[in-house]
């Protein structure tokens, strides 16, 4: 059994009633200028700011690819571009040793019918949303592929009011997650000798509005 100086045989020595004082607040008790609750609230608010910044950046970013390409591309029309150079680079980190055909689609009025030729492996046809997401891709195969399909507003773009309908049996319909976006056909260059042939194949890319 331990014995303290204050207690001998369980009897308190010289015990006096302690005055009851109001408990001081944390900041005042330590005398600090900074309230720990402010720090905690700041960290929680930082978490909210973090989430808000990350989720709003795709919509608020000043120059996503679509915005960069808009001045170069009329809506719903195919445009072929020469191989990128430092002076004429459609967007950052573009693969330079390739020729490109683009269509900027705007589905607010009509759907868009796209036709293209993918003659060999390495060629790709890709569809991108307004935020740059690649929501559909078709790579070139060993055998030449002629493709035609229709881009229509998808479920995420139901705000336009009318739901997309099926077209004739020959038309594959691809739903787009946003009303605006980009169709990109990328044709890697195999060398100067193949350039004219590549350009001719790429020029067969077409985009035309299709009535809904």
């Amino acid at each position: 059994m331990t014995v303290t100086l204050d207690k001998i045989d369980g009897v308190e020595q010289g015990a006096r009633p302690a005055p009851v004082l109001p408990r001081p607040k944390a900041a005042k008790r330590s005398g600090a200028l900074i309230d720990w609750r402010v720090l905690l609230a700041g960290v929680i608010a930082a978490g909210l700011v973090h989430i808000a910044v990350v989720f709003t950046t795709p919509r608020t970013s000043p120059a996503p690819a679509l915005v960069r390409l808009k001045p170069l591309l009329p809506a719903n029309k195919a445009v072929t571009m020469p191989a990128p150079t430092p002076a004429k680079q459609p967007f950052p980190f573009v693969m330079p040793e390739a020729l490109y055909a683009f269509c900027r689609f705007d589905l607010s009025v009509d759907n868009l019918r796209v036709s293209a030729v993918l003659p060999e492996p390495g060629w790709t046809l890709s569809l991108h949303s307004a935020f740059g997401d690649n929501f559909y891709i078709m790579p070139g195969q060993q055998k030449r592929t002629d493709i035609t399909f229709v881009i229509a507003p998808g479920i995420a773009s139901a705000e336009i009011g009318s739901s997309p309908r099926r077209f004739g049996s020959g038309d594959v319909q691809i739903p787009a997650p946003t009303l605006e976006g980009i169709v990109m056909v990328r044709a890697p260059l195999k060398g100067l000798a193949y350039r004219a042939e590549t350009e001719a194949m790429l020029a067969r890319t077409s985009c035309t509005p299709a009535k809904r």
Partner: protein
Amino acid sequence: MRRLLLNLVLFALIAGGLGYGTAWTMMEHDSRVSTRRFGPWLEWTSLGRTDADPYARAHIARRGMLPLASSYETRYLANTDSTGGALTSSCEYAIMIDLAQNSFWSIAAYSSKGALVPNAAERYAFNSWTAMRETDGKALVTLARDARPGNWLPIGGGSQINIVLTVANAVDGGTTPAQPKPLPEIARQGCR
């Protein structure tokens, strides 16, 4: 009053600075959530995909890129050599590419903001078709300011550069996955 003001300023600094700072770091740099690192090469694992994580989506939008989905092709970005030194156009680098024979690949040099590096030779990239191969099928690409024999990729200007290696995930444009091979080293040969 002074205490209230101080605490308000502190709150704003923590909320704004920490919140935006961590968001910016996650959107621009590597993190375990969105990226994988293979030596000097950095891969954004879900780049371009519709089910991409929010950091990858924000990364694309901030940079203004238009990448193909990472399920089709993988982009590896390097801003250091294999020893960890920053890639600059005042140095010379050798990259021995030994990837699957039938899969498409491309290698290009950019500025840190993704602009092509101007050069008099007007050469900005090599791909699996245009690169000259060794007898064993490998391709040695040399990045240097001045002309070099073989696959010379000019990097002029004396600034920091990025290298992007794009590799198709399937061979011959089909669905057969390419045999995984280790990514090439970026060997610094010397500096001015």
